[in-house]
């Protein structure tokens, strides 16, 4: 216990260790938050669902906070609904079961760019006679632009870009650009101010009702932006942390523990056991590691558990097993092992209780330093398109971005967000492991 305490105090003497420790702790907190805030099943559902969940987000939208760094502001996406009371709804009953339902929503538009699309999602109840709606957009300078007059089915969405009235009005212009630009300006310039969306609904039956959701696809959205399937990147960015940590820690722990135990067994039993381990190691070193992993991913399974086991299996029999063996062979001859043998300890007891614990000072730094390698390896597989098909991971985001030429098209946020997280994770563990190495291996301290 005391040695642990003193080692801990020793670690704190290295600034890089403190930085590393802080990063690792932050990641652990973030991972815990992700797992609690978005339960596993929910995260998978969100990651794998399409339009039905994510219709309210624009595609390829940068995060909203980039407006802070831009002189020309981009419109922020939002969606409001009359069910939640964000859109004011006034129903007036009339004669012969005909009643009017009027919706009104005012929003302040202060961006310099134009939105991608505007949409209305109607939900109505009726028996036979369809309700009817007239949609009007009032611009800050008082123009009333009629968007559509249309009958409304039980569930109907109205895309502004597909409305014949608007198409004939803005012939050679994108519809949202036409709606939001200043008619006086020579080049298309956004007209800033309060816009008003008015919907005059009419129902023709008793008990017939109408509700509407207004979806405004801007050019920026949310805290992290969106991808090609309108998915909010917050979900995979948050969930990438627990997956990366789990993969990195499990792989590193499994590899170092198994390597050590196998090296100890080889050194203890000697003879053919040792010989076999040596030969297996030499064969394994000739095997091409990454191609074999790619083959397993392509032909067999991309499940993260299969990959994890394969990585561990291939990483056990490497140069480190030889390094450990050399030390174990020395330790085998020491007095306390002799003593254990004298009181009749079994082989297994000597290996597990006397040989392996002796190596813990070597094991811990190696374990921590090994984590970034495995985390980046998981990302590498994902970038090659071999990531686990169900899980939202950082590597998968980079892979999606790569296949959609994100850098070429200027969606920098898409690659930068996961890359920066990966970098911090890698740096955190590498710095910590580096400092641990110096604390636990005093021989290195001088150099």
């Amino acid at each position, binding site marked *: 216990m005391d040695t642990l305490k003193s080692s801990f105090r020793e670690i704190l003497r290295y600034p890089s260790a403190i930085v590393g420790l802080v990063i690792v702790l932050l990641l652990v907190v973030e991972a815990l938050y992700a797992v609690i805030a978005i339960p596993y099943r929910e995260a998978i559902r969100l990651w794998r669902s399409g339009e039905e969940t994510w219709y309210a987000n624009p595609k390829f939208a940068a995060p909203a906070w980039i407006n802070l760094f831009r002189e020309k502001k981009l419109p922020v996406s939002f969606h409001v609904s009359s069910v939640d009371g964000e859109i004011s709804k006034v129903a007036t009953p009339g004669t012969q079961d005909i009643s009017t339902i009027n919706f009104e929503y005012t929003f302040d538009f202060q961006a310099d760019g134009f939105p991608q699309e505007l949409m209305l999602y109607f939900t109505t109840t009726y028996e036979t006679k369809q309700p009817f709606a007239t949609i009007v957009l009032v611009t800050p300078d008082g123009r009333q632009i009629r968007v559509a007059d249309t009958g409304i089915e039980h569930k109907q969405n109205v895309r502004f870009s597909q409305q014949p009235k608007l198409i004939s009005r803005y012939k050679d212009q994108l519809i949202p650009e036409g709606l939001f630009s200043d008619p006086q300006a020579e080049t298309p310039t956004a007209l800033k101010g309060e816009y008003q969306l008015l919907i005059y609904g009419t129902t023709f039956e008793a008990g017939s009702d109408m509700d509407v959701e207004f979806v405004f696809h801007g050019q920026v959205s949310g805290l992290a932006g969106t991808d090609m399937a309108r998915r909010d990147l917050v979900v995979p960015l948050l969930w990438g942390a627990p997956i990366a940590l789990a993969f990195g820690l499990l792989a590193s722990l499994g590899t170092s523990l198994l390597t050590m135990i196998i090296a100890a067994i080889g050194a203890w039993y000697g003879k053919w056991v040792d010989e076999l381990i040596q030969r297996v190691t030499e064969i394994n070193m000739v095997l091409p590691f990454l191609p074999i992993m790619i083959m397993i991913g392509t032909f067999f399974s991309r499940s993260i558990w299969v990959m994890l086991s394969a990585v561990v299996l291939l990483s056990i029999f490497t140069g480190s097993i030889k390094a450990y063996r050399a030390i174990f062979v020395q330790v085998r001859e020491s007095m306390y092992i002799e003593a254990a043998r004298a009181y009749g300890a079994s082989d297994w007891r000597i290996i597990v209780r006397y040989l392996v614990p002796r190596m813990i000072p070597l094991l811990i730094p190696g374990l921590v330093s090994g984590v970034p390698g495995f985390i980046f390896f998981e990302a590498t597989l994902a970038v090659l398109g071999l990531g686990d098909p169900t899980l939202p991971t950082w590597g998968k985001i980079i892979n999606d971005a790569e296949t959609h030429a994100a850098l070429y098209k200027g969606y920098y946020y898409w690659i930068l967000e996961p890359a920066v997280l990966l970098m911090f994770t890698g*740096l955190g563990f590498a710095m910590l492991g580096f400092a641990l190495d110096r604390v636990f291996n005093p021989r290195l301290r001088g150099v």
Partner: protein
Amino acid sequence: MEAIAQPSSEMAAPKKKSTSALVRVVRYSGVRLVTLFITVVIAIYLTIMIANMGGYVDRMMRNEIEENITMQVASGKAYQNLTTEAKKELAQQMIDLEIKRLHLDQPLMVRTVGYLSNAITLRLGRALQMASDTGSRQVRLIILERLPSTLLLMGSSQLLLFFASLFLALSLSRHYGSFWDKLIIALTPTSAAPPWFYGIFLILIFAAILKILPFGGLVSAPPPTDQFEYFLSLLQHLLLPGFALFFSGFFLSIYGWRTFFLIYSSEDYVEMAKAKGLSARDIERRYILRPTLPNIITNFALLLIGVWQGAIVTETIFNWPGLGRTLYQAIGFNDTPVIVATAIIYAYLLAITVFLLDFIYALVDPRVKIGGGS
């Protein structure tokens, strides 16, 4: 990887006088060659089995062939006048032919042993699906065609990395504790990230934002006809992937060498040389570099054969038409001959290097005796 080739302490053991030197060297070389050969054979057979997933890939390929040909016959214009029966028969014939072409009619064991014996004798054979740019299916030609670009990329970046880090480390080891020394140590964790990771950042900065270097590829399209311009374009395309490969290994490599040199510079004979008042240059060359030569040679040799494997992900990210990307594509096509060919050549190169290193040690380090220990 280094461990195989590390000069083992056994070799430095005091020599036995009972056998003559020649007999000892021959016997040692013989045993070493046989073990290395067996190692290579087993490793290659394992690779072949993994490339077939123990027969799983066979079933996959059969299904694919059946589906493709049935579709082809069912929807092909040329076959629309045939009766259903005739179509079925034709499809079956075509399926049998294709299965025969890919040797899927032979049992897995026979086929894998065939692959193995061909691989061991370096008869690389014909690819199943892939072809070289000239249209040849010869695996040898496919590999030879991609080899120069990989040699260029990996060779330039790895050689630069090796020599730059070696000499920087040598000078750092003499300025232990200086600002630069501390800076390099602080930057060592950057090597935790693989080259493709830095590649992405480099593309972002130099290709996307600054627009001064290309996103990827070997030369600009269409390829310049003028030789000098071709060379310039090649150089431009080489810059980003080469630097990514270089940078990813740079700080760790310096750190490794620096620590290694530091251990050797605290040897008594170095102190002695200092005390004698030898110049720093002489101490570096005769008292630090000379005894560390075996390790330097080992690392250099392993680096050279590492070049052969190419850089799968970096080449893929940068669209660099090298061996790494070819291997990745071959795996995508289930093209076992190509996969096995790259594996066997690597295995042979590794085995030969490991074998030769023992002799090179004995040449450069008089303390080492071949087969001296056992």
